[in-house]
C-alpha cells in the first residue's frame, strides 16, 4: 500500500506508484482516505492513464466507500476500451474512501511495451449533510435525530420540539413534563402530543397552584384514552390526581371521569406511561372558584342567620343572632354578637352558637313587699311577668308611671310598662291604726 497522510487531512493527493513515470507491473497499492468526522471524501482524478482492458481486467483502480464499490476504472482519456473516470467526482457518504490500484505482469500491446503513467488523484473533505436521510452512511443507520436535525460544516446537531428535551445521547428527545406548573385561574393541560398518541416512558407531573381559598374543578375533554386492561386496574399507564396530598383517583381507559371538584387550591396530576401503547391521551380543562363552606345549620329554632345564602364561599361571612328574648351562647359564655367567616380550607372559623332564652334572674326583693308571678310557668325567663305588692295595710305601694307589673325584657332585666328598671317602693301608711280607740260609752 502507498502511504496516505496520517491523521485526517482536509485534502490531499494520491499518486500511482512512480507517477508521473510509468507504474510498475504486478503492483497492488491501497489507499484508505479518512477525513475528519462530519465530512465526506470527494475524489477526482486529475490525470488517469492505465492500461485499458475489457472490464478493466488487467490494470485498474477500484474505489470503495460506504461499503459500496464506486467503480473499477482503467484506460486512457478517449480510449474506447476500459473505463476512464474522466472528470467524475467520487463522493463518500462517510469519512472514509478506499482506493486499490492493481497492475498485472505486463503492459504490452502486440509485443510493444507501452508505458502507462498511472494516475494522479486529488481528494478533499467535503461537508457531509448528516441530516439528509439519503446520506445515511454505514455508520449512521439509525435516524440521526429524533425530531430535528441541523447540519453545519463538519457536523450536525439535533434539537427537539417544544416540550421535549434532548437527551444525553444528543439524538433522542423526551417529553419534559416532570414539573409543569399552572398558576392561572383556569386553563388546559393535556398529555404530550394530545390528541396524538402519547410517548412512552412518561413521568409527567402537572401542578396547579392557585391562591388560597380557591377550589379547582377538573373537566376531562374527549377523546380520553389511556391504556388499560379489562381485569386489572390501570396496569400500564396511569393518570393519578391528588389534591393537597390527598389521593383523588387513578384513571385509565376510555371513559373520562366526570367533573372532579377537588375542594383544594393545590392539585397534582401525575401521568405515568410504560413503553408501549397507542392511546391518544387526555386533556383537562380546569377551572376554579372560591372554595365553598358547608351550609350553616341553626342549632335551634331561635337562631337567626342574617341574609341566608344558598352557597357560602371563601371570605363570605355570616352574622348570626337570636330571636328577641334569646342570647347567643357559646358554651357557658354569652356572646354579644357572632360572625363566622368562611376560611380558605372550606371550614367556618368558629362553630355555630346556640340561642338560649334570656333569664332575668330573680326579681329584686321589695322591702316590706313581695312579688308574684302572673304567668305559668313561674320563672325568670323572657316575657315572664311579675307583680309587686306591699304588705298592706301597713304599707302602700308607690310605683313609677309604668306600674307595678314588671316583665322580663330581652335585655335580661325586669322592666315596668314604661321600660324602667326601678322597682316600686313600699311606703308606710300613716294614721291608720288597725285597732283605733273606739269610745263606746257616751
Amino acid at each position: 500500500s502507498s502511504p496516505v497522510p496520517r491523521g485526517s487531512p482536509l485534502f490531499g493527493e494520491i499518486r500511482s506508484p512512480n507517477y508521473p513515470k510509468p507504474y510498475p507491473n504486478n503492483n497492488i497499492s491501497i489507499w484508505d482516505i479518512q477525513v475528519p468526522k462530519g465530512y465526506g471524501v470527494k475524489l477526482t482524478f486529475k490525470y488517469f492513464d492505465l492500461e485499458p482492458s475489457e472490464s478493466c481486467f488487467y490494470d485498474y483502480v477500484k474505489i470503495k466507500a460506504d461499503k459500496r464499490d464506486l467503480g473499477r476504472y482503467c484506460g486512457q482519456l478517449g480510449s474506447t476500451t476500459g473505463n476512464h473516470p474522466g472528470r467524475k467526482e467520487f463522493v463518500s457518504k462517510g469519512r472514509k474512501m478506499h482506493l486499490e490500484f492493481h497492475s498485472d505482469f505486463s503492459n504490452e500491446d502486440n509485443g510493444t511495451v507501452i508505458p502507462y503513467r498511472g494516475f494522479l488523484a486529488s481528494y478533499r473533505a467535503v461537508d457531509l449533510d448528516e441530516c439528509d436521510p439519503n446520506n445515511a452512511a454505514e455508520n449512521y443507520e439509525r435516524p440521526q435525530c429524533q425530531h430535528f436535525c441541523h447540519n453545519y460544516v463538519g457536523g450536525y446537531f439535533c434539537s427537539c420540539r417544544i416540550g421535549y428535551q434532548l437527551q444525553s445521547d444528543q439524538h433522542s428527545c423526551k417529553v419534559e413534563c416532570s414539573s409543569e406548573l399552572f398558576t392561572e385561574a383556569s386553563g388546559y393541560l393535556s398529555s404530550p402530543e394530545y390528541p396524538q398518541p402519547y410517548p412512552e416512558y412518561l413521568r409527567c407531573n402537572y401542578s396547579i397552584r392557585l391562591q388560597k381559598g380557591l377550589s379547582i374543578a377538573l373537566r376531562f375533554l374527549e377523546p380520553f384514552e389511556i391504556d388499560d386492561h379489562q381485569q386489572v386496574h390501570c396496569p400500564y399507564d396511569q393518570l393519578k390526581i391528588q389534591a393537597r396530598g390527598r389521593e383523588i383517583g387513578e384513571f385509565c381507559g376510555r371513559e373520562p371521569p366526570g367533573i372532579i371538584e377537588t375542594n383544594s387550591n393545590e392539585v397534582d396530576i401525575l401521568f405515568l406511561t410504560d413503553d408501549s401503547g397507542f392511546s391518544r391521551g387526555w386533556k383537562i380543562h380546569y377551572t376554579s372558584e372560591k372554595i365553598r363552606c358547608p351550609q350553616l345549620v341553626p342549632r335551634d329554632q331561635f337562631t337567626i342567620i342574617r341574609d341566608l345564602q344558598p352557597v357560602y364561599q371563601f371570605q363570605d361571612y355570616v352574622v348570626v343572632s337570636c330571636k328577641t328574648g334569646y342570647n347567643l351562647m357559646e358554651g357557658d359564655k354569652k356572646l354579644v354578637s357572632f360572625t363566622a367567616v368562611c376560611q380558605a380550607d372550606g371550614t367556618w372559623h368558629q362553630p355555630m352558637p346556640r340561642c338560649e332564652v334570656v333569664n332575668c334572674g330573680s326579681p329584686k326583693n321589695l322591702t316590706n313587699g313581695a312579688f308574684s308571678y302572673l304567668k305559668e310557668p313561674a320563672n325568670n325567663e323572657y316575657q315572664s311577668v311579675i307583680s309587686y305588692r306591699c304588705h298592706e295595710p301597713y304599707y302602700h305601694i308607690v310605683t313609677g308611671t309604668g306600674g307595678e307589673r314588671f316583665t322580663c325584657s330581652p335585655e335580661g332585666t325586669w322592666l315596668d310598662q314604661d321600660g324602667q328598671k326601678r322597682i316600686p317602693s313600699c311606703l308606710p301608711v300613716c294614721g291608720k291604726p288597725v285597732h283605733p280607740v273606739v269610745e263606746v260609752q257616751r
Partner: protein
Amino acid sequence: ILGGKAARRGNFPWQALTGINGRGGGALLGDRWILTAAHTIFPKGGVQNNVSLEQLAEEADIFLGHTNVDELHKMGNHPVRRIFIHPDFNPNDEHNFNGDIALLELKNPVTLGPTLLPICLPDATNTSFYAHGHMGYVSGFGVDKNRISSSLKYVSLPAVAQEKCQSWLDSNKKGIPMVFSENMFCAGFLEGKKDTCQGDSGSVFTVLDRESGRWVATGIVSWGIGCGTGYGFYTKILNYLDWINGIVKEDR
C-alpha cells in the same frame, strides 16, 4: 296621763317610749323617724346640755310596738343615728318652750305592723284641727296619779281657743312668766282631772281627719303648769311642717 284610760295594743301604734333625759314620748313618722319634744333631749335647765347630739344619739333609748313598758324593754331598743333639734328651741330659757320639737332618726327602719304604724302629719292648709273644742287624743307613758306609768294611757282632750289659753295663762301663771307663742296651742279642761303630765312630753296630740279617715298629729306634749290643774300646752306641729319635711324628705 291623768284621767285617761289604758290603751290597748294597736290603739296608738305610733307611740314611742323614749329614754334620753328621763322618760318621754314620741311618735313614729314613716318607718324611721321619731317626732318628739326638744326638751326631752335638752331639758330646760338641764345639766347635760353641753353634751353633743352624737353622744345623746348613742345614749338614747327608743322603744316601739307595745303598750307595756316591760314588754317594750324586752322587745329591744331602736338605736338612733341622728338627732335634729329645732333651732328655735332654747334649753336655757326655762319659760319659753317655743320650738319644742325634735326629730330622731333611727339607724334602721322599723317593720310596720298592727302594733307599729306611723302617725300622719296635718295638711298645711287645714287649721280646723286647732279650732276651739276640736277633740283629740293624747297618749303617753307619763305620770298617772303621781306614779310613773307602766303602761300606755290615753286621754281625750279638746283644743282650746288661743285667746282662752292666753287668758288662762295670764291669770294662772302663779308668778311664772311662761311664753305662749303662736307655735303652741293648748288643750284640756279647766276643771276635771284629764291632762297630760311628766313623762308624756314628746308624745303627740292626735285628731281624726274624718275626710281621710286617718289620725293626724297636731301637737306635741310640751309643758303645763302642774298637771290636771288647767290646760296643757302643745307644740303646734302645723307650724313646723316645713322644718320636718325639710329634714325627712331631704334625707329620703
